[in-house]
């Protein structure tokens, strides 16, 4: 029993006031009011169409005013815009975060580029910092000095071996002078006159020695025991070759000066100054050529190392620049998005600050009012049916004109938003 009593308990008076303001009910009330006021006004004005026009205008302005005053209702209508704005704000936050991340990345890239540019310059001063060992700080100058020495020595070697090999293998001695024996100014010409095969032979012989010198350089690169053995073998071989050349020349000179009964022997050769002169003018110069060549090659490689390093850095900088420009494009896109989101937010804000006109609701009341008006014409006015119809047609035109004027005649959306500018 008590439960039922409790079930039927009423609210306090204070609360009931609140409950009464339920919008649903209020709207229903308003609807009926419009119907009745339409009815009442029509009765008073005898359904006159001109009056209807004025009344509809009044109705519109009072409804608009009412809407503006119904703050709670406006709040409700604006809710979707507020929610949308909130959504846009979240989007904006996301973009801003992305932007700051991209900014950081961009700064990193810029400092990387700066570092790479600095390294390109600094590598010439401090090559060892960048892992380039055994490099002279002025490799270029040393390279050119070495090259300047190497060229004349090469020419000398050519001349010497051409003439020495000519003397050793082909020359018939007509004088015993040493210079003529070792060096023959006409060696090339004479060998050519003897036949092109002989010329090729003596021209290519210097290349054999230079090839040996090149091998010395290559073997020196590998600092292994076997390389040194090979190096020693090469030196001995070259020395032997020189000895053979000197021996042949010495023998020819001996044969030219020979007294009857004498025979040429190695001991005679070893005791001869000519023999050693040939060896030194050839082999020692050859050794010097090999060392200078080795030195020049090394300097050249050093220049190369630094060049390679710089080339690598340039490539890196190019890549970093590419990354940077990609990033800048991304940043641009995001900045555009931020601008458009900001635009949307302020557009929504102006809607929120503005006023939402509930079109459908207004039309509903408008037709209620019109219904009341027509109802009164039907019921109250004492006119023939034909006149009533004419009157109603006129009123209908006025009503349509009124809606047209407000651009509401073909409304298919719920609300019209007046923005605050």
């Amino acid at each position, binding site marked *: *029993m008590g439960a*039922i*009593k*409790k*079930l*039927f*308990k*009423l*609210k306090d008076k204070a*609360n*009931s006031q609140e*409950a*009464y303001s*339920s919008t*649903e*009910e209020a709207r*229903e*009330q308003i609807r*009926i*009011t419009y*119907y*009745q006021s339409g009815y009442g006004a029509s009765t008073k004005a005898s359904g006159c169409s001109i009056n209807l026009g004025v009344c509809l205008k009044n109705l519109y302005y009072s409804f608009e005013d009412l809407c503006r005053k119904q703050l709670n209702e406006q709040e409700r209508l604006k809710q979707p815009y507020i929610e949308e704005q909130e959504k846009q704000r979240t989007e904006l936050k996301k973009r801003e975060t992305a932007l700051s991340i991209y900014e950081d990345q961009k700064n990193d890239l810029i400092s990387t580029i700066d570092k790479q540019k600095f390294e390109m310059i600094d590598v010439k001063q401090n090559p060892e910092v960048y892992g380039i060992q055994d490099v002279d700080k002025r490799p270029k100058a040393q390279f050119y000095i070495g090259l300047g020495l190497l060229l004349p020595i090469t020419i000398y070697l050519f001349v010497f071996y051409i003439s020495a090999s000519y003397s050793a293998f082909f020359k018939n001695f007509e004088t015993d002078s040493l210079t003529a024996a070792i060096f023959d100014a006409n060696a090339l010409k004479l060998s050519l006159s003897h036949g092109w095969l002989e010329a090729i032979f003596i021209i290519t012989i210097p290349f054999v020695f230079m090839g040996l010198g090149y091998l010395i350089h290559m073997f020196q690169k590998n600092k292994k025991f076997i390389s040194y053995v090979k190096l020693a073998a090469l030196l001995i071989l070259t020395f032997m070759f020189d000895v053979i050349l000197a021996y042949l020349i010495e023998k020819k000179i001996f044969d030219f000066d020979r007294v009857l009964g004498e025979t040429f022997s190695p001991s005679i050769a070893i005791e001869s100054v000519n023999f050693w002169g040939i060896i030194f003018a050839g082999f020692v110069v050859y050794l010097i050529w090999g060392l200078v060549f080795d030195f020049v090659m090394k300097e050249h490689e050093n220049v190369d190392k630094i060049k390679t390093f710089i080339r690598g850095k340039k490539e890196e900088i190019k890549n970093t620049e590419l990354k940077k420009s990609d990033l800048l494009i991304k940043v641009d896109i995001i900045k555009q998005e931020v601008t458009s989101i900001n635009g949307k937010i302020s557009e929504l804000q102006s809607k929120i600050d503005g006023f939402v006109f509930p079109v459908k609701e207004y039309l509903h009341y408008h037709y209620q009012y019109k219904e009341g008006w027509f109802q009164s014409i039907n019921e109250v006015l004492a006119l023939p049916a034909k006149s009533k119809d004419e009157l109603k047609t006129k009123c209908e035109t006025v009503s349509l004109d009124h809606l047209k004027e407000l651009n509401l005649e073909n409304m298919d959306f719920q609300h019209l938003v007046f923005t605050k500018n």
Partner: protein
Amino acid sequence: MISTELKSHFLRLYQMAFADDNFDVLEMQMLYKFAEERGLSKEQLNDILLNPSHDSSIPESLQVRVEYLYDLAVMIWADGKVTNDEYNTLKKYCKKFEFLDENITELADYLLESAKTGVSKEEIITEINS
């Protein structure tokens, strides 16, 4: 002269009959039966329904409120079924009649249950007053 209170009551009953978008013949008959009970003629009821007044008012006494709500519940059962719209409309009126918010659903259920089993208005009133 018919009081605004009674007019409002019949308008509510009328709305309830329309709540399921289908004005059943049984609901129409029920409406006229209620009018008879309250001493209203058919013409008077028609007049009320065709000339809606905007001053809807709710009765003062608890007893009348319960009676009116019970009428609505009976009206709902007139066509032998309870639609969602009818149920919600009844709850809306329970709320409008200033019953406690937390009891609304229970109250509507109780009224519908009583109407279904055919409990008389007097029985409910005595139960509440006891």
